[in-house]
C-alpha cells in the first residue's frame, strides 16, 4: 500500500516539496501562457482563448505571489493550489483545440496534452492516487476531444491518436506511482539512518560510562584483594579507595546532568538490569553490543597473544 502514498513522511519535508511543485507550475503557467498568447494573437486575434490564456496566467501570478508571501503554508493548501493551477488547463485545452479545429488550419493535436501529462507526472505533489487521477482527466479529455471535435476526420490523420496520448498517460501514471514509491523508500531510509545515528550515539554514551568506571573499579578490585590477603589497611590504601569512590561519584554526577532527558511512562518507573538487557537486545541489529564484555576482565587477545 505504500505505493499509493499511504505512508506519511515529515510534514515539513512534504510541505517543502509541495511548495516547490506549486512554484514550478505557477512559473510555467505564467511564462507558457504569455508566450503562446504572443505567438497565437497575430494568427487568431484577441479571442476567448486569448482571454482564457491571460486569465490562467493571472491566476498563476496570484498563486505565485501567495506562496512567496506565505512561504510556510500547510501542505494541504499547497497541494490545493497546485490543482487550482493545473485543472483549468483541461477546459482551456478543449477551447483551444476547438478554436484550432474551427479555423481549418492544420495542427498536430494533443501536443500540449502530452506536455502537460509528462510535466504533471514529474512535479505533481500530494498523494500519488490524486496525481494519477489528474493525469487520467487529461487523457480522458484528449479522447473526448478526438470524438466530439472529430479531430481525426478534420485533420486527416492516421488513427494513432488518441491512443498515443493514452500511452503517454499510462507512462505518466507509472512515473507518479514510482515517485510515490521512491518517496516512501527515501522516508524509510531517512528514518533508519536517524535511528542508527541515535543508537550509535547511545552506544558511545554507554561505553563512555563503562570506561569512566573501569579504572576506579580496578583500583577497588586490587585494594579489596590486598585487604583480603591480610594486608592491613594502610593510609595509602584508604586514600586510593577514597579516590576510587570519588571517581565513581564524579561519574554519577556526570550522568545526573542527563536525568531530565529520561521519559517515564506508567509501568516503566523502574529499570532493572534484566529489563535493560532486554532493551539492549532490541538494538542488536545495529550490532552496538560488539564492544560489551563477553567475559569479565578479558576484552580480547591479539593475533599473537
Amino acid at each position, binding site marked *: 500500500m505504500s505505493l499509493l502514498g499511504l505512508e506519511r513522511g515529515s510534514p515539513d519535508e512534504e510541505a517543502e516539496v509541495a511548495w516547490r511543485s506549486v512554484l514550478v507550475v505557477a512559473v510555467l503557467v505564467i511564462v507558457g501562457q504569455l508566450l503562446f498568447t504572443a505567438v497565437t494573437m497575430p494568427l487568431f486575434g484577441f479571442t476567448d482563448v486569448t482571454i482564457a490564456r491571460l486569465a490562467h496566467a493571472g491566476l498563476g501570478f496570484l498563486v505565485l505571489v501567495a506562496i512567496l508571501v506565505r512561504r510556510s503554508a500547510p501542505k494541504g493548501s499547497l497541494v490545493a493550489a497546485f490543482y487550482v493551477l493545473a485543472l483549468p488547463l483541461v477546459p482551456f485545452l478543449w477551447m483551444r483545440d476547438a478554436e484550432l479545429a474551427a479555423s481549418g488550419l492544420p495542427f498536430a493535436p494533443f501536443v500540449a496534452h502530452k506536455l502537460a501529462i509528462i510535466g504533471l507526472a514529474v512535479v505533481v505533489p500530494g498523494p500519488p492516487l490524486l496525481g494519477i487521477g489528474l493525469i487520467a482527466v487529461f487523457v480522458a479529455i484528449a479522447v473526448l476531444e478526438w470524438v466530439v471535435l472529430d479531430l481525426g476526420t478534420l485533420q486527416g490523420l492516421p488513427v494513432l491518436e488518441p491512443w498515443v496520448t493514452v500511452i503517454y498517460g499510462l507512462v505518466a501514471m507509472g512515473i507518479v506511482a514510482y515517485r510515490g514509491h521512491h518517496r516512501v523508500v527515501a522516508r524509510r531510509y531517512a528514518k533508519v539512518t536517524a535511528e542508527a545515528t541515535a543508537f550509535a550515539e547511545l552506544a558511545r554514551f554507554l561505553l563512555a560510562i563503562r*570506561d569512566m568506571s573501569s579504572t576506579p573499579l580496578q583500583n577497588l578490585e586490587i585494594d579489596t584483594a*590486598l585487604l583480603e590477603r591480610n594486608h592491613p589497611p594502610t593510609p*595509602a590504601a584508604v586514600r586510593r579507595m577514597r579516590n576510587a569512590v570519588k571517581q565513581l561519584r564524579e561519574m554519577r554526577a556526570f550522568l545526573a546532568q542527563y536525568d531530565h532527558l529520561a521519559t517515564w511512562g506508567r509501568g516503566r518507573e523502574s529499570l532493572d538490569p534484566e529489563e535493560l538487557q532486554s532493551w539492549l537486545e532490541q538494538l542488536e541489529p545495529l550490532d552496538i553490543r560488539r*564492544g560489551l564484555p563477553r567475559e569479565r576482565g*578479558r576484552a580480547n587477545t*591479539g593475533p599473537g597473544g
Partner: protein
Amino acid sequence: MKVAVLDDSGDLVELICLLLSTTAEADCIGAESVEGLKARAKEVLATELAVLDVNLGAGVPSGIDAYTWLVEQGYTGRIVFLTGHGATHPLVREAMALGGVEVLEKPVEVEEILALVGSPTS
C-alpha cells in the same frame, strides 16, 4: 620477576606494583606516562613483563606509542595491554591488531594479574 607498569592513574600503578611486589615478589617499575617510562629506559628494558595502559589521556602519547618504543629498543619481554575502553575503541583495536600482545579489559581480576607473573592465584 621484573615488571614495568604504565598507567595514567597513579593509584593504579601504585596498586599493581604493590600487589605484584607483596604477593608475587616481583620488582615493579611504575610510570604514569610514556616519557616517564623512557626516563627509566635501562630498568624498563630489563623487565620481563610490561603492562601498558592503552589510553593515557587526550593529546599525550598512548600505550601504543610505548609499545612501539619498546619494540624499537629491542625489548624481549612479554607485553600486555590494559584498557578501560571497550574493544571498539580505535586505540584498543589498534592494540589488538599488534602481534604478540594480549589486551586485558579493566577491571581485571587480581588472579589474572598475578597469573601474568606466574604467581599462584590463591
